[in-house]
């Protein structure tokens, strides 16, 4: 009798050893071609454009002016100051107005010449924003006992909008003939 040979049990397999290599290549491609764009910056809101400007009288008490001329000299309320000192100088003024109603809060107005270096403007603006954020942070620490980032939305709103609102005015450029 012919012996019926039992078929050997062949395992059917898709070779997947090279799979990880392929995926590695893909990964490398994405790693190399990626530029993770950082969109960081100082956010501001411009005032609405109006044909006719209204002049609202503002008491000197609440106004701080920062002027930068084309040579890079900085004046704070008329006194010469170095840019890194602006923040320290402003902090006390902001703190002293925390409990005042919103129409008596500090306004910081920043004004430049057309020939002023943009970098200087950003440095000065940075100092102003920094002063406000630091005051907000210390206020939140003192009043709520936690940092600004840990506050509830409602508490945050009170701090940012009511107690220490950032009021920065970019002064209207003067017409130059």
């Amino acid at each position, binding site marked *: 009798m012919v012996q019926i040979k039992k078929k050997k049990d062949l395992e059917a397999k898709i070779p997947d050893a090279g799979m*990880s290599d392929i*995926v590695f290549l893909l*990964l490398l491609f994405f790693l190399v071609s990626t530029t993770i764009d950082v969109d960081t910056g*100082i956010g*501001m809101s411009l005032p609405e*454009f109006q044909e006719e400007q209204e002049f609202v009288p503002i008491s000197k008490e609440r106004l701080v002016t920062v002027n930068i001329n084309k040579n890079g000299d900085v004046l704070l309320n008329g006194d010469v100051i170095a840019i890194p000192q602006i923040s320290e100088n402003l902090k006390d003024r902001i703190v002293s107005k925390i409990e005042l109603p919103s129409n008596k809060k500090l306004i910081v107005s920043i004004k430049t010449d057309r020939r002023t270096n*943009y970098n200087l403007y950003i440095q000065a603006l*940075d100092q102003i924003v920094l002063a406000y954020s630091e005051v907000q942070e210390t206020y939140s620490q003192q009043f709520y006992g936690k940092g600004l980032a840990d506050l509830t939305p409602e508490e945050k709103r009170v701090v940012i909008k009511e107690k220490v609102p950032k009021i920065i005015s970019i002064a209207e450029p003067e017409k130059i003939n």
Partner: protein
Amino acid sequence: MNFKKKRSNSKQEIPTSSMPDIIFMLLLFFMVATTLREVDVYVKYKLPEAEAIEKIENKRLISYIWVGRSGKIQLNDNIVALEDIQDIMYKKRVELPNVIVSLRIDKESEMGVVTDIQQVLRKASTLRINYSSMLKQ
């Protein structure tokens, strides 16, 4: 004496079958986190550095204006004249009411061009701006 070391007969293998899965995960992360650059920037610029900067949370809202060292202004993918910005930005604002304009201005620029752009943006009522800057180290 028998010097032969005792070895177990079992195969020693590190299981690598799930390696592709792990790498796929990594790959997916990068694919999701990547925003491929859609526009070519034609102007040379170096951003200023600042400390009190914030991240723009919603990337979809951003529209970029570049100002190069030479004073050229690029909006989207074209070099534009100052006067054209108003129309383009106004159209953009109609489409996307709370658009944020990210100003990527070279740090050696003069304020003149910045104020001009700001005035144009105000006329186009795109009032939310962001002075793009790097974190100071």
